C-alpha cells in the first residue's frame, strides 16, 4: 500500500463548494481552457500567495517578461493543487519551470503529511512534464506573534529540503527575507493580515525569486 492512501495531504481532492457559487471549479476550468493557446516558460501554482501575486505590479514587472502563467487559488492546500494538476491544468502546456508555493492551508495535517503532499506534487509534475524543473518555495511564517503554525511551516520546509536534496529536477528556495522580527512579531507592513503579502512584502520575496528563476531558465535553455 502506498503512503499516499494514508496521507490526506497527498490524496488528490477537488475543492468543495461550501458557499453556493461553484467558484473553485470555475477557476479550475478557467485555468484549463485559458492554457490552451498559451506557451508559458514558467508556471506558478499554489494558493492565495500565488493567486494574489498576479494582481500586483510585481507580476507585470518581473514575471510577465518570463512568460509566466498563474494557477493560484486562494485557500488551496496540497491535495487541491494535486487534484488540479492531475485533472487538466498541465494538459496543454510545457513550462520549463514550475514554481510551487503551497502548504500553509493544510489545516489539520502534520508537517510530515504536508511534506508528503508537496512531494506528491513534485512527482506528478515529473511524470507529466519530464523535462520541467520544479522550484518549491518555502512556506512563510504567519500570525502576528509565535504560534504553532509557524513551527509547523518551518518543519515542512526542513522536511521538503531534505526530500528534494537528492533530486536533480527539484529544489526548495527559502523566500522569507526575515519577516519575523527579533521580538517574534511580524509586521502588517509586510503581511497585512499576518498571512498575505503587501506590495512591499512581495517585492522582498520576488526579487531573489526572480533572480533564481532567471538562472534556472538559463540552465534549462542550455540542456
Amino acid at each position: 500500500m502506498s503512503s499516499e492512501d494514508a496521507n490526506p495531504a497527498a490524496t488528490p481532492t477537488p475543492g468543495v463548494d461550501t458557499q453556493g457559487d461553484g467558484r473553485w471549479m470555475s477557476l479550475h476550468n478557467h485555468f484549463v481552457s485559458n492554457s490552451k493557446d498559451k506557451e508559458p516558460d514558467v508556471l506558478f501554482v499554489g494558493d492565495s500567495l500565488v493567486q494574489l501575486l498576479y494582481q500586483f505590479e510585481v507580476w507585470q514587472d518581473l514575471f510577465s517578461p518570463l512568460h509566466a502563467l498563474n494557477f493560484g487559488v486562494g485557500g488551496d492546500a496540497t491535495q487541491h493543487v494535486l487534484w488540479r494538476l492531475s485533472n487538466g491544468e498541465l494538459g496543454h502546456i510545457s513550462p520549463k519551470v514550475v514554481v510551487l508555493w503551497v502548504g500553509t492551508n493544510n489545516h489539520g495535517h502534520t508537517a510530515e503529511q504536508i511534506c508528503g503532499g508537496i512531494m506528491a506534487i513534485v512527482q506528478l509534475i515529473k511524470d507529466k512534464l519530464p523535462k520541467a524543473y520544479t522550484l518549491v518555495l518555502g512556506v512563510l511564517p504567519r500570525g502576528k506573534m509565535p504560534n504553532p503554525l509557524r513551527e509547523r511551516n518551518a518543519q515542512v520546509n526542513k522536511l521538503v529540503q531534505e526530500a528534494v536534496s537528492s533530486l536533480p529536477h527539484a529544489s526548495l528556495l527559502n523566500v522569507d527575507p526575515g519577516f519575523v522580527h527579533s521580538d517574534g512579531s511580524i509586521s502588517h507592513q509586510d503581511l497585512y493580515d499576518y498571512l498575505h503579502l503587501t506590495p512591499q512584502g512581495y517585492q522582498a520575496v520576488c526579487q531573489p525569486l526572480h533572480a533564481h528563476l532567471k538562472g534556472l531558465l538559463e540552465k534549462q535553455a542550455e540542456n
Partner: protein
Amino acid sequence: MSGDEINPAAVAQAVEDVQGDDRWMSQIWRELFSPLHALNFGIGGDTTCNVLWRLQNGELDNIRPKVRFNWASTGPEREKSTAQGNSFVPVMHFIQIRTPNQYLIGPLQVTVVWVGTNNHEHSAEQVAGGILAIAQLLTSRLPKTKVVVLGLLARGDGPNPLREKNAAVNGFLRSWLPRLGQAQFLDVGAGFVHSDGTISTRDMFDFLHLTAAGYRAIAKPLSDLLLQILDETPEEKRASLV
C-alpha cells in the same frame, strides 16, 4: 466592464493598462479616497456579525476622520476552522499603514459600509437586517454622520443562488435604508454581469474579489457620491460637529 464593449479610441490609456498592475490599486485609494482623509477597517471574510462586533468593541471610539470605510471584504467562511481566514483584500494593506493619529482633523462625516456577501448561514432578509443593524448602530452612535451602504455584488462565473440572494439583499436595503434618514444605498454592481450571464476574471479574479479594473469601476461612482455628500456639509456646520 472588462473593456470589450468600449470604444478603445474613447478610453484613456491608463484604463487599458490595469490588469495585475499594483499602481492602479494604490492609485485608486491615493487619488480618490486619500484626499478625503479616509480610513479603512475592512477584514476579509467578515460577516455582518463580525462588523457589528468590531464597531461595538472599540473601532468607533477614538478616531474622527472625515470618511471611514467599514467594509468586510469577501473571503472564505471563517467558521470552517479558526485557523483559516485567508482573505483576498489587495486594497486593504494600503489602509493599515495609516494610523488614526494622522486624522484628528475633523468630525466623521460619512461611513461607507460594504458587507453581507459572506453571511452564508443567513437568509437574504436576515443579511439585510444585519446590514441595517450596522447602519442603525452608526447613526445612533454618530448622529451627524451619513451612512452609505454599498450594494452586494454579483459573484460566481455564471448564474447561481448566491447572485439571487445578494440581489434580494439589495432589494431589501433599497426599501429599508431610506427610512433611517441619514443612510442611503448605492448600487455599484452595474455592468459586471455580461449579457451571457458570465462575470469576467478581468473584473473579479476569482469571480468574487475585484481586480484593479473592477475596483476602479466601483470607486468612481462611490467617490462621486462621497464628494457630493462632503460638499453638502457647509464649512460652518462642519466646525460645530463633534
